[in-house]
């Protein structure tokens, strides 16, 4: 990677992690600004790592996630009330475990003896990913499409029930 791509990587990583902290620590709709920062930062990181198609897919998916969460927050503001209550022992233990997970992952990243190598042979483009998704891993793509269909159908049905009420 040249210096420009490296600098871009670290800038986008900072944006992504700042957005993630905003999602974790802010409340209400301000949290969604953090999610937008994560969407832009993560898509930029993917693109910087030569994964343009994954960058486009992630950007679209995360923007849709932010709009769905915004719609939920505006439809049911009372759902936010639970965040104003004091955290119980399970939440505190869960937060500590998440910190422990980060320490383990950071240790593995530094100490793991990964085989390095960037293969220049073979094609690496959108059509290659499409062939894998629709050919070799068609079952995973079908399962994903099924999960997506269930989610969207549930959202549509619930939205219709709320409007009828």
């Amino acid at each position: 990677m040249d210096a420009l791509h490296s600098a871009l990587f670290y800038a986008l990583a900072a944006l992504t992690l700042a957005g993630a902290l905003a999602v974790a620590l802010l409340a209400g709709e301000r949290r969604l600004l953090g999610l937008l920062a994560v969407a832009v930062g993560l898509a930029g990181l993917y693109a910087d790592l030569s994964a343009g198609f994954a960058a486009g897919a992630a950007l679209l998916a995360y923007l849709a996630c932010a709009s769905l969460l915004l719609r939920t927050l505006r439809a049911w503001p009372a759902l936010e009330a639970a965040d104003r209550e004091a955290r119980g022992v399970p939440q505190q233990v869960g937060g500590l475990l998440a910190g422990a997970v980060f320490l383990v992952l950071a240790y593995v990243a530094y100490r793991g003896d990964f085989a390095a190598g960037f293969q220049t042979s073979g094609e690496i483009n959108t059509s290659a990913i499409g062939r894998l998704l629709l050919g070799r891993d068609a079952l995973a793509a079908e399962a994903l499409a099924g999960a997506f269909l269930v989610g969207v159908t549930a959202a549509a049905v619930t939205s219709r029930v709320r409007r009828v009420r």
Partner: protein
Amino acid sequence: MTVTLVPVLFVGGALFATGAFTVAYRRSFPGALAGLPLLLGGAGLDLVGVSRFATSSADRVAGQEFAVVLAGLTLAAVAAGAALARPGPGTPEGRR
């Protein structure tokens, strides 16, 4: 400072852990749901990093492929969660 697999794994791990923290620590349902994209985004970033820096010639785009699958899975999970979200029966909005 050039980018190798280690910084990518570090950023992916930090994103994953922040998502895990959000899911575990938030008491409100939308708050916890907002942590899900962070969790899966961290995993996707690690996959793309391995695909870029430590891959074999036979399976170069597999990491990118699963990052795309994870992005779709994130959207499906958040859509299902947003559809299921509703206030408890004890709240004024829940009795509506």
